[in-house]
């Protein structure tokens, strides 16, 4: 029996809930040869500022147990080159383009959003107010309720496109940030960005990456990310895009049951760039085994009733 994997993110209709996570899929075109960009629910491109950025000096990543720390420093080509060089090709390929918008000031978030709105062909704006790897801007806004509201409200006024602030997990009460975003007019929220972390090379007593601090991602963080998605789902009505350590269909379903309408995959795409077709097949299989027609029925379907202590 054919299963319906499609989901609605507010006004957006996605053929399936899988979105490539920002910073883990380049500008999408890098993956043309291994993935059919149109077959993904969406492609969220690397964070963009108004102008080009060089990012941090390497080494920029280090592997940790079931995860990795990165401090890329948002190297990027800037919104203008993106619109000129990448966006047309992404549209040709039939990709639903999510753009991860960065800024060092509220004005910059607004300006970048305007350029993308005027360019046309962008599906949604993901507001990166949660990057732990840059000095000014980003997480500065994401760690303050006032800052979050201000950025979201300003960008909201500047575009008709869906506005999706991306929340940081490095806060005491993430749900309050989801609430602030909803109140400021966000169409959805995405979470989690990476956890601020560090790893020391004990042989040299030096950092393992140049920036010293970086963001932890991968399966290691999944149990915290699932908890945060569940907390947000109980706090707000707008849809949630969940992410953090998703590697297979089971993980994707876990986030969806917790309340996510769509999910993003980042680190797992590094390990296996063919993850997309595998997870899609796994979702079909899950729906078959549980005899569920539409994946959307699973959104928030987690039942907190305690399990049995006995397994058999």
């Amino acid at each position: 029996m054919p299963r319906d994997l499609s989901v609605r993110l507010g006004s957006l209709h996605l053929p399936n809930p899988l979105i490539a996570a920002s910073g883990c899929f380049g500008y999408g075109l890098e993956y043309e040869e291994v993935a059919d960009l149109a077959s993904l629910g969406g492609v969220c491109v690397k964070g963009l500022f108004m102008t080009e950025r060089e990012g941090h000096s390497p080494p920029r990543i280090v592997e940790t147990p079931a995860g990795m720390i990165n401090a890329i420093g948002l190297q990027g080509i800037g919104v203008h080159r993106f619109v000129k060089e990448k966006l047309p090709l992404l549209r040709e390929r039939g990709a639903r383009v999510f753009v991860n918008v960065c800024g060092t000031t509220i004005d910059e978030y607004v300006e970048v959003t305007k350029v993308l709105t005027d360019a046309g062909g962008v599906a949604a704006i993901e507001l990166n107010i949660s990057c732990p790897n840059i000095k000014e801007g980003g997480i500065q806004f994401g760690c303050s309720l006032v800052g979050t509201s201000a950025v979201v409200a300003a960008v909201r006024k500047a575009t008709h496109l869906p506005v999706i602030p991306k929340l940081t997990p490095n806060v005491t009460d993430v749900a309050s940030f989801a609430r602030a975003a909803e109140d400021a007019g966000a169409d959805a929220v995405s979470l989690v960005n990476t956890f601020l972390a560090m790893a020391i090379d004990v042989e040299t007593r030096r950092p393992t990456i140049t920036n010293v601090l970086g963001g932890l991602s991968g399966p290691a963080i999944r149990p915290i990310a699932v908890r945060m998605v569940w907390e947000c789902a109980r706090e707000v009505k707008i849809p949630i895009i969940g992410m953090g350590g998703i590697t297979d269909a089971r993980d994707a379903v876990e986030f969806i049951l917790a309340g996510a309408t769509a999910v993003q995959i980042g680190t797992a795409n590094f390990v296996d760039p063919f993850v997309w077709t595998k997870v899609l097949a796994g979702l079909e299989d899950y729906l078959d085994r549980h005899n569920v027609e539409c994946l959307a029925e699973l959104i928030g379907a987690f039942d907190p009733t305690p399990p049995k202590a006995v397994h058999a």
Partner: protein
Amino acid sequence: MSPIDVDATVIANRRLSRDYNVLTLAAPEVGARTIAGQFVMVRPAEMTETLLRRPFSVFEIIRDPAGRPTAISILNKRAGRTTNRLYETESGERIACLGPLGRPYTAVPGPAEAWMVAGGVGLAPFATLAEALASTRIPTTLFYGARSDRELFHLEFFERLGVTLVLTTEDGSRGERGRVTAPLDRALVGRSPGSIMVYACGPEPMLAAVSGIAARHRQPCEVSVERTMGCGLGGCYSCVIKVRHDAQPHFVRSCIAGPVFDGAAIVWD
């Protein structure tokens, strides 16, 4: 050619020394697509403690009598968790192998000779490159430096292809004592500019030195760099290296713009 991912069975694991081994992988399709200088991203297929794949140059492309690829091999040097595990791997185990990836060495028109400069495990890309060059019949030399005699591998292979060998060891146990850059520098003296294509692979300090030497002698030089790679496909921006683009130096992703670069364009740190 577009990369593929195969769960390749380990056909053989030849341990060459306490640190080096050659792992033969049943990945003929990868071999068929590979051009010298390209790499693969590998990781043990079963449960493993490590998460990310690791980059390895394609060492040999093994062919049947008809010349059809039957397998590839990688030259593995122990440096940490994955490389230690690959050293211990038994035949029959499966290794996920994604490739070929990256920009290969290029045959630059003009040069009368091709010189390969290898430092330690930097020998890896030159087995396939030597085969490619042999078919073009241009005179080929391998400058090859290692810590000691015991870590100079595969020499007969290159001799069989008619490659001239210039060997150095840090302990002087074979060939000239010291760095491989010394004989290279001397040999280039008096050669007409643009007549020799220099290909280098090894530790970055060596690559920087070779690039400088080649530039001084006005010879073209391609180097294969080693940066920590998260994905190998241009997705993560972890593998960058500073390269001069028009005037400006920029960080470029060595997994897709490289690993092979024009040595003169790189800003060495």
